[in-house]
């Protein structure tokens, strides 16, 4: 049986996407790249990093709005733009916020580089956890461990074990480490605070500063 589909416009092209899929899934299927941080296939979408925002409108005009493509399901007749000026402006600012708080996390560096950021206007911090929640979802959804969770609120939010002790349900499977973006060796290119070199996005050849040798894809989880 043919799966049910809906028709939508994606970056100007009329496409048919499977009903129930998200905009992100549909876009990737058609080779359109939308950067993500807190999204991982086979884990439930979280919608926390907001980097995957797209501009959504309806056929026949009306107001458009931004929403995360990882949580927004395709609907009949929606018009989606993944690279409109409004999206780019928002994504650039999000990348700047992200890299300013975690300049030594590879995925933050990657997204900043890809958005063409060369200077960060905020004071740099050095957080290692970007609160993407991948480890928590990995633990509870794939490993059935439920050993991790968020504690605190707002700027004091952090990933924590229940009462800061390892529960019996944690089998030390290291699933959390496996998905953690902070565990990827970062680019050593950021030397001066606030300055991003962005060499990897400009050179034809792979610069020798890329630790993973994954020049061009930035991160395996974020395929172009």
């Amino acid at each position, binding site marked *: 049986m043919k799966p049910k589909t809906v028709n939508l416009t994606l970056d100007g092209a009329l496409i048919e996407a499977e009903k129930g899929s998200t905009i992100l899934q549909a876009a990737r299927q058609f080779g359109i790249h939308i950067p993500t941080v807190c999204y991982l296939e086979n884990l439930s979408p979280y*919608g926390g990093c907001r980097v995957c925002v797209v501009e959504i409108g309806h056929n026949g005009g009306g107001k458009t709005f931004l929403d995360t493509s990882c949580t927004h399901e395709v609907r009949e007749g929606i018009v989606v733009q993944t690279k409109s000026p409004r999206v780019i402006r928002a994504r650039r600012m999000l990348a700047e916020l992200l890299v300013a*708080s975690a300049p030594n996390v590879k995925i933050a560096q990657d997204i900043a580089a890809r958005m063409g950021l060369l200077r960060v206007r*905020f*004071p740099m911090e050095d957080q290692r956890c970007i609160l993407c929640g991948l480890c928590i979802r990995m633990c509870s959804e794939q490993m059935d461990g439920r050993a991790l969770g968020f504690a605190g*609120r707002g700027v004091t939010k952090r990933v924590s074990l229940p009462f800061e002790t390892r529960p019996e349900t944690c089998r030390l499977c290291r699933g959390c480490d496996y998905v953690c973006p902070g565990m990827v060796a970062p680019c050593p290119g950021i030397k001066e605070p606030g300055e991003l070199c962005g060499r990897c996005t400009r050179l034809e050849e792979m610069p020798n500063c890329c630790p993973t040798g994954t020049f061009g894809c930035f991160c395996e989880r974020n395929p172009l």
Partner: protein
Amino acid sequence: MRRIRTVFDLEKWKREIIAKQGQYETEISVCGGTGCHAYGCKKVKNELVKAIRKNGYRSKVRLKFTGCRGFCERGPIVTIQPQGIFYQRVQEKDVPAILSETVAQGRVLEYLLYEDAVTKRKVTSEKDVSFYQKQQRVVLENNGLIEPTKIEDYIRIGGYQALAKALGEMTPDQIIDEVKAAGLRGRGGAGFPTGIKWEGCRKAPGFPKYVICNCDEGDPGAYMDRSLLEGNPNLILEGMIVGAYAMGAKQGFIYVRHEYPLACRNAETAISQARKVGLLGQNIMGSGLDFDVEIAQGGGAFVCGESTALIASIEGKVGEPRSKQTHTVIQGLWGKPTNLNNVETWANIPMIIQQGSQWFSSMGTEKSKGTKIFSLVGQVKNTGLVEVPMGITLKEIIFDIGGGPQNGKRIKAVQTGGPSGGCIPAPLFDLPVDFDSLTQVGSMMGSGGMIVMEEGTCMVDVAKYFVHFLQEESCGKCLPCREGLKRMGEILEGITDGQGNGESLFLLEELAQVVADTSLCGLGKTAPNPVLSALRYFRPEFEAHIEQKKCPAAVCTPLIKYAISQGGCTGCGACQKVCPTQAIAGERKQPHRILAELCGKCGSCRDICKANAVLVQ
């Protein structure tokens, strides 16, 4: 207590209550609202109980401990019926005189009456007080007439008649049509048409359905939902039962923060009394409707006022919002259709059912119907809860009801809508207050907070305050709200510290727009409003901080300098005594001066100086 099985039972009970309460010659009502509690109304009430017992008035005088009457500035408020005498600022020591003079001999105690600020005349009855004159108290009216812990009081004034009418004479569709025709819009802030929401919930497939009352009010300076639930919980319950009947819900929740203990207690009492008399539970009034209400206590997180975060909190999860592509009326609590309304919205329902949609839509403007309760606070003479028809101007609220600014200063702006709203400057005070016109000027109705600010307020400081508030209340789930607000706070902090530069405002604006655009929930989406509206109307003030390193309102301490006017100083030495850092030098009877390097800029010298010789630059 009896059980109400039919509409006739309700009527009969009402007649009996009226007959029974008719034996009292005098009714003394002490306001038991939160504001009056702070002024010590409980002591007054206890003293009255004792005095009534001692004087043997128990069969003659009924003492009522009512809900908030709104005029919180003048608490504790005591009214005496049937004469309709309105006493304000009543203290324990006034109680014997009230009983011996007013109750026994009918004499009015002049010194307890309210003095009109303009005419300087003493006012005897409540309706002549200028604070109440321009108001149209429809929802709040009964707060002062009933004791919230007694369901009999509510039945006596015609309570649960709307429910009887709805169950006996109307079909669910008729109720929804009536609410739609009334044009009621959600009072929680967004102003979504209630009837359409209800229709969506009724039509949504799924069972069971839920209704929720949102009493997680957390805006600084706003307390109207709290006062309604404290003062008239049965009104909310009645609205919820009518709504449950219209939408086919089986279970209701009142989500109230545990920081509102009186509201929790009174709502709990009302629910248990309603259960006892059969107004909640199985087969309500013989109509076959089964419905019950529970209280869900929140931990006091601001973000839990957002519908999806509130639902997560009731489910026992962390109060964090989720993506709202599928609305909660389709998929809400435990994935079932859920209708969530604000306290005030529910409170309007019984009146719409009983008096009809035409009556309701006769009040207000074309697109915003009915009345709205505002909590008028800040630097005005008469603070308190005001209920006004939609479309009244800000000027009327602030100057006619609020009595204008305190101590003769000029009013600079009014902040509406709490942390999600914005500041409206004084030149726009002719603006009619309704959902759309407030949004148009960059603020919003919100749940109804109204903070009046006079000329001594620094708008950069106000913007900073709200950003810091939201930064602390942000759940931290999404990046723009968590990091963006932190950065906005840093930039504003820099500006008030005199470290702002030419780029600061540009960056602040850009960041604010992105935070509004990309945040996950309503908290983040509206969080930049205070900053954006302040920038829109008070940009020169921001620029003064950055370019001239001066705070025009003399609030931001790093940017101001204290000095003593050599001509004005009498050399009394009062400032020397209060100065915590010994920064004031000078002989007695000689003009003093301030040593800048020691000055802590606390302002104590300015407060104490009788000659107004301390200047701030």
